[in-house]
């Protein structure tokens, strides 16, 4: 026996050695089959969870996103920096600016004179939240909101920044955040779209909004945002044309559906059932929409609360009231855009007007949801796409100034839907240029919003062009500290 073992050892020549190596590699190869992502650093996405259900129990059922389009200045709203007033006119130290890219508008500027808020700040509520005098009504509800002062983003210009905020990517063609919720959770009220969009315009310097911002991207088209217009017909072409009654419409739709079904049976295009579904929903919307858009039945003091402008269609106040009605009726995601926040110059004058447009109605929306017992299940978010610089763009005078785009920090607030109320989260340095504590990236905000709605941002995926896409792409951390 020993001889055989000995011989075996002696016989270990190059050929044996190579043979053994091959065996060894075989063992490694077999093991590597158990590694789903051998070459990538991330774990593979787990199997798709069922759609239309929350991934875990969560309070929030609906979202109202109040987009302040153009980027309101954090320094005149929530981020109080008295140091800037002390340093009026002094140049921004290059060490603070670091390697921050500038926009084409101030890149040529020789100096960057610091300028503080022309408007006063006071502390409000139990937590002593700082709010500027421009927002007296929001100041009254600070105990119901969570101000995040440490938001930051990647983009420095409006369109990419807004697209980023809306879709989680700076380039277009990705589904908008509302579409993701429509896809992940479905519609609560099947007589209304899951995702509605309302537009309004302030008098300040404005930036355009385009329908790509509420596009369904690669998701099927039933998830795209439906824009409600300010006219007598909030949803265009919804009413039956003259000479067609509801019964005829029904018969017409039934025939159309059967023909579409034939088309689907033959080609299997998933857009066809989406289309059938949309026709059906539009039919039911014919009765559901008038019930909702009629604000005449709202009690008088509600109109006082939102401000009398809420009776003028197309204003921010009217849209806030409509947003409440839509949300109350089970629209999963209502999105408002209020244009006119791009104060490169004449900030003092324009900001006053803009704040006047939104302050009362934004606060009223939150109070109104609260008194109906709906604030717990509705998440309200007030946000621009980025912040504004702490230095003046253009000519600095004692009474007026302008501010350029600033992606490194900005302030937003959230309310309801399982968010901690009455707190301020995150801090910026004393010059309001860099974040010093608890930064929240747009991806983190998305992850947090999804978490509040009971969705795991890493698990809600859609396979397109051979890879699985998420709203947060490969990023995003839930900001646990602001969860109630």
């Amino acid at each position: 026996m020993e001889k055989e073992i000995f011989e075996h050892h002696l016989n270990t020549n190059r050929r044996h050695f190579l043979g053994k190596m091959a065996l060894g590699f075989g063992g490694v190869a077999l093991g590597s089959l158990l590694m789903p992502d051998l070459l990538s650093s991330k774990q593979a996405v787990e199997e798709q969870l069922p759609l239309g259900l929350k991934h875990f129990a969560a309070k929030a059922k609906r979202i109202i996103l109040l987009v302040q389009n153009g980027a309101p200045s954090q320094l005149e709203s929530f981020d109080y920096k008295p140091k800037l007033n002390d340093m009026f006119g002094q140049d921004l130290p290059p060490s603070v600016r670091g390697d921050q890219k500038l926009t084409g508008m101030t890149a040529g500027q020789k100096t960057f004179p610091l300028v503080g808020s022309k408007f006063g700040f006071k502390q409000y509520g139990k937590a002593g939240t700082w709010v500027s005098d421009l927002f007296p009504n929001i100041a009254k509800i600070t105990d119901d909101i969570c101000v995040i002062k440490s938001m930051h983003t990647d983009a420095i210009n409006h369109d990419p920044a807004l697209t980023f905020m809306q879709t989680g990517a700076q380039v277009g063609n990705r589904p908008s955040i509302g579409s993701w919720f429509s896809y992940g959770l479905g519609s609560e009220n099947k007589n209304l779209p899951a995702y509605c969009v309302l537009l309004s315009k302030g008098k300040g310097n404005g930036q355009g909004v385009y329908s790509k911002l509420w596009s369904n991207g690669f998701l099927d088209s039933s998830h795209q945002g439906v824009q409600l217009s300010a006219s007598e017909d909030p949803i265009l072409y919804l009413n039956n044309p003259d000479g067609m009654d509801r019964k005829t419409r029904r018969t017409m739709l039934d025939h159309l559906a059967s023909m579409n079904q034939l088309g689907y049976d033959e080609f299997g295009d998933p857009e066809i059932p989406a289309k059938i579904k949309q026709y059906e929903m539009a039919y039911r919307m014919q009765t559901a929409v008038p019930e909702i858009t009629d604000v005449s039945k709202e009690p008088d003091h509600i109109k006082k609360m939102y401000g009398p402008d809420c009776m003028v269609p197309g204003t921010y106040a009217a849209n806030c009231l409509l947003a409440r009605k839509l949300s109350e009726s089970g629209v999963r995601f209502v999105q408002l855009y209020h244009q006119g926040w791009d104060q490169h110059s004449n900030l003092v004058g324009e900001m006053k007007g803009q704040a006047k447009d939104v302050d009362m109605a934004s606060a009223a929306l939150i109070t109104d949801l609260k008194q109906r017992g709906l604030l717990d299940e509705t998440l309200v978010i007030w946000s621009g796409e980025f912040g504004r610089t702490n230095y003046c763009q253009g000519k600095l005078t004692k009474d007026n100034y302008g501010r350029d785009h600033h992606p490194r920090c900005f302030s937003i607030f959230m309310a309801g839907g399982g968010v901690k109320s009455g707190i301020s989260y995150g801090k910026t340095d004393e010059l309001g240029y860099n974040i010093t504590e608890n930064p929240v990236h747009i991806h983190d905000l998305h992850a947090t919003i999804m978490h509040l709605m009971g969705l795991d941002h890493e698990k809600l995926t859609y396979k397109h062009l051979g890879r699985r896409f998420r709203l947060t792409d490969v990023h995003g951390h839930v900001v646990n500290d602001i969860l109630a």
Partner: protein
Amino acid sequence: MKKSVPYFLNTLFFLHIFLAFLVVFESYLEIPFWLQPLGRMHPLLLHFPVAFIALMVLLNLFRKQIDPASFEKINYFLLLLTSFTTVLATIMGLLLSLEGYESELMTLHKWIGIGISFAVYAMVLTYLHKKVYQILLYTSFVGVVFGGHFGAGLTHGSHFLMEPITGAAVKKIDENTPIYTAYVAPILKAKCTSCHNPQKSKGELDLTNVEAITRGGENGEVWLAHNPEESLLLQRIALPLEDEEHMPPDGKTQLTGREIELIESWIDHGADTEISYAQLNSEDGLKQLLTEKWLKGDRGKEVYAFDFVDTKLIGDLNSPYRTVVQKSPTSPAIEVAIYGRSSYQAEFLTDLAKIKEQVIYLNLANLPLDDNSLKFVGELKNLEHLVLNFTEVTNEALAALVANTKLQSLSLAGTSIDRAAIKYLKEIKSLKELFVWNTQLTDADISQLVKELPGATINEGYIPDPEEKMNLTPPTLIGERNTINSGDRISLGHKMNGVSIRYTLDETEPNEKSELYESEITMDLQGERSKTVKAIAYKDNWLPSKVSTFVFYDKGLVPDGLEVVHPGILSAYTGEAARILNDDTKYDANTYYYSKFYASFNSKPLIAIADFSASNPKIKEVVLSCGSRKGAKKSSVMYVEVWSSNNKENWTLLKKLNLTNVANPDKLSEISIKFPESTAKYYKVVGQPNTKSTLRVNQLFFY
């Protein structure tokens, strides 16, 4: 036998490389479901190596009694078998462990197993060196004893072996357990002690017991009583994740906000390791924190006694007007919302009888409910959240809700309930939130409710300040058309109910004494080209609106058809010049000059041909409404011509108006071209833009 030896050796080599790979890349591995049964065979297979190793020890102890040649044969063959079964059992065990067993015991068991596997393989390789072989054999045997013990601990619990003797019961946590033992120590155990224990003690720190913690580590004390800011433990936790000094290090499980908050509050309170929940007084921040976030949280982990509902039934219950959805995939609780006031039928609610037990959330807002509906709601025993805003519920109907003993949140905003509802509401003892905004309850009623329901928050909502007055918005015009014929009627409107609109037709400012708008106003142009309506809105408790002014223009003679030869230049304007010029609506140039409502022309002129061949009226004036903007310094029009014809081929010039150097170009909004009365069938209007100018036109009138 001889022949099979090389095969055996090769297989063993292969399996050990495989095992080594699994061990090194363990954290990257994921076990596909079809491989899991293999892992689960570990408990079956492991008995072979246990027995074989024991047998080998016996064999070696009694080798003197055995014939040496057969001993060698048996021993070597047994060794190969042992190594083979050991490595297989280890690989399977490793696969099984990846299914998610995390414990100290697991780690010990795993490494001992891996150790034995390689030790036995080393015995195979060093078989000829008897000394090494012997040492390895007895070490392996010791390993088997301990590894086996820990493995048994994993399946049966670590106290299993000695329990009958020691009888040590695990202490239950109650309000008298020290907070340190109940909450703080478990956090440290979960997040810190894997590195800071007596064996490993990184940074010379051991966090497993109070004495060791008091000793501190190489950087000093772990915490300072009453001083969370200066406490090293919290400082390290608070550092950014990227920081070298941050604890637990990046990659390890981090502490949650709730845990940090608790430790902070506990240190702030004095880091007393003996104090218990019961000993704290109710004002204390630490006690409140525990009550709010820890005790409530534990209770909030909704464990429902009822069963899951078949997903098919849930699917069937969903309809366009009713949404029925499970709270989450792991919860049997169901949330229901019913929508659509005009389509509502009582069955929408009563169909829910099939899931009576599971409904915990029900939203019936805005529905026309009768008292019977609430009787049904009363049968939903596990209902936690009910929304009845703006429904027709009556006081008496609320009696049914007393049966909902789990109801926590009730919204009654906008209902007509009053004082009489209190006697039912106060019986719903489980209530935590009650929303009674916009009901008939008075302030006194609400304070009574607050007294009757001490555990609940009563939300009475926004109460307007009666002193605060706001301006109404101005009245609006219904419909957009602002060109009329004498005798046409127009309507005014307002989104607010109960306003009175007063108006004037003589361009004076309206006031409280002006004509009250009751129904459509009949417009009499009285030979004028336009008529102005000024209106103002009034309402009690509101300040009057601003005056709104609506100007109506004489529509004149409407052509049977209108065509425009060149569409002009397109931008916001999309080229429908003929429709724009003839759409009965005159748009204000100050607002709409660059919009789709203004047709624009520059290189090619505006050429509009109006067809009056059927009506054939007398025409003596054409007005081109082109609008102009304030501050315009130069006329945008070179000339305007009007031609007539009866066959669209031979045109006669009726009039040409030269406007190149007009005196006030900023007032050039209505270009009127008068000519001797004509009854031609066709008229051609030519508007030639000025050089380098754009002519924008909105409406074309014939009088």
